[in-house]
């Protein structure tokens, strides 16, 4: 069986690295002494007994817990994309810790793990509240989880940007550092993980039935809601304990569960055994690898970020071999109201946008409180505000169009440039320019970001080609690319390189650096792309009907999909440069347009573009004025105001 073979290979590599690492620290003759009772006078023995060995134990425990949690999540949610990020738990824990560090440091004295745990369960509660009325259906849970996760992540990023001097330690924790100084973390984790694992062990049969469709399971008399709740709670507890103890090590759960399935563990019982073994070996091997690279006890190449760096390409490579037995629900399956007159709706949004534009340009606080700019002040103030507002408007509009195209192309409501890894690719290109070239101006950055976006797109396309660009493959590839990028960012920020702070500032979507030249550039690109977009509308109307229907209409499916994806890449690269890759305008704006009753491609596209522009202009205005003279990056504000709107709409439907 492939899974067992994989496990043996990983296990062997990890064991070899461990022996090598340990002999660097301490001659093998002293190993037994160090294990049984170290000589306190010999620092080498102390380090092996209280740092090296507990770290090894924690890596095994955490890896196994994450593998188990990933499998249960994927089973319960019936979604191969499910991971600690998808249910918002990691972001919730991270946010709680960041908030406690800034606002109530005394809470941390009780133990940072409890703070993180509270955050994780709060995030889960929010996800449940949002998806409860739909009986915790797989799609609604994942969608709510994604929203909660992005939302918590945005607040966390805002805190880091605004108060970075206090949060250096959060970087290390956030990136998943496994470093230990005694056995307390191991002893803390052991009973908690054991209890959650036991609960899962008792539920193997009902969990298996959850993999069937709802009607099938119900006809067997299984209380679906109860077992879904219990399964999710157990999985989230596992993740929360790990996050609380060692930080965010997100990729192991997804990788282990997927690898177990690819490796041939078909029945849930097998997967529940294989995934923890693979997860443990994976994290163990990664952690020992990090120590080989950085020397004994190297703490500052964070293992959690390194697992993602290693795990993401592995998943990309394995994706074509993945048999996806699970169907992602299509966008068309939802019944939404249709507006009788889409023109009226569009005019209303347009009017609102104009009103907001006037406010954003004229009304803001100054040294003497809130004022309308007028007279002598008008010209100098506009010279600061106009470029930022223009750039925000253009970027919001482009992201919205890109998101609409992705959602119609893939038929998946979770699709957006952010989720597909194109934003991450653009950001990666910009990052390479920033770190490798001494003086990277805006034009160099633009070129680098565009190359990055297209490179990400090419990777996604290469993986999607075998399956004729099937939506699930594209999404999984995108998630893997995004994880890769996040890992790089985490590694960079944890090294404390001051340039990482500049990068983080940009990543959060600040319009601060926009001047007249770049605003003109962005607006021109946006205008050109919008002028080309009517050519796509017929295809966008057809694509959600499914590939068979499209081909029967005489359309070349491959060529169409390729063209749409190229357009998406161009839109994303141009907008990412201005507002960073973190906004979820691309995800949100098409949904909002749809909920307003715009269902055909063209009206929905115009609506989404207007809504995207509206949110982004509003975000920029709030960001510039809310905590004057400080500023909140527009990308973060967009997430903060867009998130609740989307949640409200999700609940209402």
């Amino acid at each position, binding site marked *: 069986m492939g899974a067992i073979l994989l496990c043996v290979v990983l296990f062997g590599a990890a064991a070899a690295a461990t022996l090598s690492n340990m002999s660097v620290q301490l001659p093998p003759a002293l190993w037994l002494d160090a294990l049984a009772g170290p000589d*306190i006078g010999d*620092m080498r023995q*102390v*380090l092996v*007994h*209280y*740092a090296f060995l507990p770290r090894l134990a924690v890596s095994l425990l955490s890896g196994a817990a994450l593998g188990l949690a990933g499998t249960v999540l994927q089973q319960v949610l019936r979604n191969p994309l499910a991971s600690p990020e998808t249910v918002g738990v990691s972001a919730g824990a991270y946010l709680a810790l960041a908030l406690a*560090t800034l606002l109530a*440091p*005394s809470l*941390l*004295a009780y133990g*940072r793990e409890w703070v993180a745990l509270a955050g994780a369960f709060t995030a889960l509660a929010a996800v449940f509240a949002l998806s409860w009325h739909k009986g915790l259906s797989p799609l609604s849970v994942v969608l709510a989880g994604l929203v909660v996760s992005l939302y918590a992540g945005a607040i966390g990023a805002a805190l880091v*940007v*605004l108060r970075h*001097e206090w949060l*250096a*330690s959060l970087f*290390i*924790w956030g990136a998943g*550092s496994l*470093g230990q*100084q*005694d056995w*307390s973390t191991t002893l803390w984790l052991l009973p908690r993980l054991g209890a959650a694992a036991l609960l899962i062990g008792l539920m193997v049969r009902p969990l298996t039935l959850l993999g069937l469709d709802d009607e099938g399971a119900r006809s067997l008399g299984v209380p679906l809601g109860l077992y879904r709740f219990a399964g999710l709670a157990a999985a989230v507890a596992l993740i929360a304990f790990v996050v609380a103890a060692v930080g965010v090590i997100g990729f192991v759960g997804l990788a282990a569960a997927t690898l177990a399935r690819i490796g041939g563990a078909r029945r849930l019982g097998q997967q529940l055994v294989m995934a923890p073994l693979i997860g443990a070996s994976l994290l163990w091997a990664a952690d020992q690898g990090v120590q080989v690279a950085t020397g004994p*006890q*190297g*703490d*500052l190449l964070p293992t959690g970020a390194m697992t993602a760096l290693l795990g993401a390409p592995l998943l990309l490579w394995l994706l074509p071999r993945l048999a996806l037995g699970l169907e992602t629900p299509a966008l068309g399956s939802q019944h939404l109201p249709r507006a009788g007159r889409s023109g009226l709706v569009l005019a209303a949004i347009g009017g609102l946008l104009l009103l907001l534009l006037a406010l954003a340009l004229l009304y*803001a606080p*100054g*040294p003497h409180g809130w004022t309308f700019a007028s007279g002598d002040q008008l010209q*100098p*103030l506009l*010279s*600061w*505000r106009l470029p930022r507002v223009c750039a925000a408007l253009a970027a919001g509009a482009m992201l919205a169009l890109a998101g609409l195209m992705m959602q119609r192309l893939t038929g998946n409501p979770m699709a957006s440039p952010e989720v597909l890894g194109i934003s991450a690719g653009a950001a990666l290109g910009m990052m390479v320019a920033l770190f490798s070239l001494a003086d990277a101006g805006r034009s160099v950055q633009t070129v680098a970001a565009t190359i990055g976006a297209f490179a990400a797109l090419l990777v996604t396309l290469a993986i999607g080609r075998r399956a004729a660009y099937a939506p699930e493959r594209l999404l999984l590839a995108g998630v893997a690319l995004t994880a890769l990028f996040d890992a790089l960012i985490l590694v960079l920020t944890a*090294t*404390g*390189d*001051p340039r990482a*702070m*500049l990068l983080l*500032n940009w990543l959060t979507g*600040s319009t*601060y*650096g926009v*001047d007249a030249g770049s605003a003109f550039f962005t607006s021109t690109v946006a205008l050109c792309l919008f002028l080309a977009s009517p050519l796509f509308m017929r295809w966008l109307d057809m694509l959600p009907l499914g590939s068979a229907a499209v081909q029967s209409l005489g359309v070349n499916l491959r060529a169409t999909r390729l063209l749409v994806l190229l357009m998406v890449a161009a839109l994303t690269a141009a907008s990412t440069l201005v507002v960073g890759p973190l906004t979820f305008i691309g995800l949100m704006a098409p949904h909002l347009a749809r909920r307003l009753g715009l269902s055909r491609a063209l009206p929905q596209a115009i609506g989404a573009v207007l809504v995207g522009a509206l949110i982004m202009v509003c975000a920029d205005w709030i960001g510039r004025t809310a905590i*004057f*003279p*400080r*500023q909140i990056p527009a990308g973060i504000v967009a997430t903060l105001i867009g998130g609740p709107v989307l949640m409200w709409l999700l609940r209402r439907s």
Partner: protein
Amino acid sequence: MGRSRPEFANRHAKLETDQQTSPAGTGYRSRGWMTRRGALALFGLPLAAIMSRPAEAKPLRIICLDDGLAETLLMLGVTPVAVADREVWEKWVVEPPLPPEVADIGTILEPNLEFLQQLRPDIILSIPYLDGIKPQLERVAPVTTIGIYTPDGQPYRRAIEATRQLATLVGREREGEALIAATETYFSDVRRQLALLSARPVYIVNFLDPRNVRVYGEKSLFQAVFDRIGIRNAWTGETNYWGFATVGIDGLATSDDARLAYLEPLPEGAGSTLTESPVWNAMPFVRNRSIMRLPPVLMFGTLPSASRFARLLAEALTAERAGG
């Protein structure tokens, strides 16, 4: 950064020539660019000329984006109009105290440009780290960039140069030279005072969390102070461009007789976690009880921070000897 100093000198020289050739000085009045020497020269001018330019008697309106440069300005007796991240001062810089009238213009990476313009500065002091926003700053007022932390890694020498540069800018050259001389003299005094205590090397660290520290070494301001007061730095490993390395605390076990000095502020909870940690308790400096807690010192500062560090370290070393 290598460029900014000569550039500055040229601009300055040019302004002084302007002043001599055109007493009315209308060419630069719009920016109110003025030096003290220039102001003194003006007293010799006819009364009418002074009456027509009342603004020039006022001191230079300086906005300072770097705390290190701001502390030197304050020591020269000049108060900047505004600084970035004001509330950081009391936690990380402490002295000299920042007068209450100094405005806060937002974060260092994104100072509020509209606010900046409304403060009507004559000059903005910046550092190479902020070169990314220099084009925006230049639209408000002339920007002078002064680098203390640069790839050549000589922050102390650069801090002296910066002191002279700032002193010339505000027309207080005498005060500038006095500050440099006083700092050097103070270091010699401390060196004599610590002669008997300097045998053992010292680690100087900031705690990031209970497991990890920033340890300062080569290319740091603290290293320069160590060299001048005759203390050996226990950390001889590599450091980055800002003069520190980030390591786990067990990375500090390389020297058997080293002492450890850690700077406040301490992250919440770090103290109690440390006292329970077996690795921490096995560290040589813990077993020797050679640990010193120092109040905050700006690690990326200039001469005032260097003196403050020397004073606090000397006090701690003396107290440790008295206690031990």
